[in-house]
């Protein structure tokens, strides 16, 4: 995973709530066995609509998505994160994320930033009024900045450290392999096995 410290880019306002993972990447695209190449499937059905915000050329090259509440509900598909990253997004801002989506995003280094409804609405107003407005998502200082906006967000110290260092969770866990072995020696012998 690439480290994430601070990112500055332009932002897309996605004024929709309950953007589920079937909208982010439809099931048809989940048949693939690779981790990359999902950008063409991102918001596939909506991109057929010329009025959809991602089809607005003023937002070409934007790297921050500013969405309504309950972003990423539904399926556990990590492909949703891969599709957003393949398209070029580095961070998603929303008043509320679905738990599994948030977890997947943090694994892959796509920063999910939770801000209050009114702050997200202000940010959407700012980038709607000026699509060239630069938005900074600063993980070091835990703050989002845009012209006329300076909003602190919450992220726990451990997650922030892991993202800033770009650390692989499996490697971190395997540092404690002895603890896993010790736990296994304590498990009840009647616990089921699959073979």
């Amino acid at each position, binding site marked *: 995973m690439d480290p994430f410290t601070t990112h500055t880019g332009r932002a897309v306002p996605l004024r929709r709530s309950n953007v589920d993972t079937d909208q982010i990447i*439809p099931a048809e695209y989940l048949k693939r066995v690779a981790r990359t190449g999902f950008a063409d499937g991102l918001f596939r059905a909506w991109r057929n609509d010329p009025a959809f915000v991602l089809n607005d050329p003023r937002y070409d090259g934007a790297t921050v998505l500013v969405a309504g509440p309950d972003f990423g509900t539904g399926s556990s598909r*990590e492909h949703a994160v891969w599709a957003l990253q393949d398209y070029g997004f580095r961070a998603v801002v929303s008043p509320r994320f679905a738990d599994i989506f948030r977890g997947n995003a943090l694994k892959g280094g796509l920063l999910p930033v939770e801000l209050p409804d009114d702050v997200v609405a202000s940010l959407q107003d700012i980038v709607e009024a000026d699509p060239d407005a630069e938005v900074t998502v600063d993980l070091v200082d835990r703050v989002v900045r845009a012209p006329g906006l300076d909003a602190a967000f919450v992220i726990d110290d451990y997650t922030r450290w892991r993202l800033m260092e770009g650390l692989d969770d499996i490697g971190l*866990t395997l540092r404690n392999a002895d603890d896993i072995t010790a736990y296994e020696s304590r498990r*009840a012998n009647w*616990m089921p*096995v*699959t073979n």
Partner: protein
Amino acid sequence: MSQTLAEKVWAAHLVRSAAGEPDLLYIDLHLVHEVTSAQAFEGLRVAGRQVRRPELTLATEDHNVPTTPGPIVDLVSRTQVETLRHNCEEFGVRLFPMGDDGQGIVHVIGPQLGLTQPGMTVVCGDSHTSTHGAFGALAFGIGTSEVEHVLATQSLPLQRPKTMAIEVTGALPAGVTAKDLVLGIITQIGTGGGQGHVIEYRGEAIRGLSMEGRMTVCNMSIEAGARAGMIAPDATTFDYLKGRPHAPQGADWDAAVAYWQTLVTDDDAVFDKVVHVDATALSPWVTWGTNPGQGAPLSGRVPDPRDSSDERALAYMDLTPGTMLHDVAVDTVFIGSCTNGRLEDLRAAADVLRGRQVAPGVRVLVVPGSVAVKHDAEAEGLHEVFEAAGAQWRGAGCSMCLGMNPDKLDPGQRSASTSNRNFEGRQGPGGRTHLVSPPVAAATAITGRLTAPADL
């Protein structure tokens, strides 16, 4: 110290707990299917890692599987299934492939085999893993990176979730099912209502449910945004498990039951959030929108939109506020899925369809959740009831719950579906989905309009 059920199961699986770090939790059972595992196995291969505990891992083919006889025609689907087979062979994971008597939807086969037991931690790269919480297990969906993590370490670093009680008071009225109950709950608390929480379903109506009904309720916990849903194990749970292939036997059974009986929320334990639901106020329920929180009593009307999300949903669904829901015509009925594809669900649908005919022009798919469910249903003659009524009796798989196999809606088609998601395009691009219970699906098949059995 007093603990909730979820807190007890969490504490019993702590591998490591250190200040300032997520807890490291041991995973007792890891279920795997073809869609979310390929990139995880590839990650192991690249890093030169093995599956730490293949005997705590079980794989099946479900999402891409056609429910009519014959091989997978779609080349991309076939490659994905073949990739799973190759990975399971290389890493020593037991697999139930298409055509095997053990094959079925991942969340149907775990309980059916007796692999899902109270107090366990169960994960799968699939959000409906919450189903297994019906046994008092802590069960939740994970992403592919976490699948790789569990394969490599049999553990997961996790932030401790909050706890939430849904207290269902009173008994469900006659004709009201577990599906109506959970749809009613999601309508009440919304798709984000459970976010960050593990829900424990409690109360008289929950205790009165069969294991199949409890699985239906826990299955849709994710639709309320919850990390997991749980129900404390009781005699209903133990009766269901006893004698199943992977359930403990003899003295082990006694030891297991003695432990399982401790898996209840202590009387003075405190939940972070408590919601009360009146079971007696529920009736057959149906969704009218494009998320599972947009639901209403089937006896009611399409509601006026409250916000832009509702307006968008009504436009997508091509519905006008004020329309009686029982006047909404469908062209497809789907009975199946990990929500409602078990034997009890098929019996409930057959009871409505017996001696009746499907309305002309309505396509009705009845899809058992596993090959074992299919065999059990056929032993009771249920397939004859469905076929005599004009429904299609299919093979086991995820089928029309999601658009990954040949069972789909065409653009503009409308279904009554016993599955779990009514998202835009979920059952096929441009398709429109109304979530319902198996009896309502069957009654709808007969009239061609959304219908409760009592109104036949």
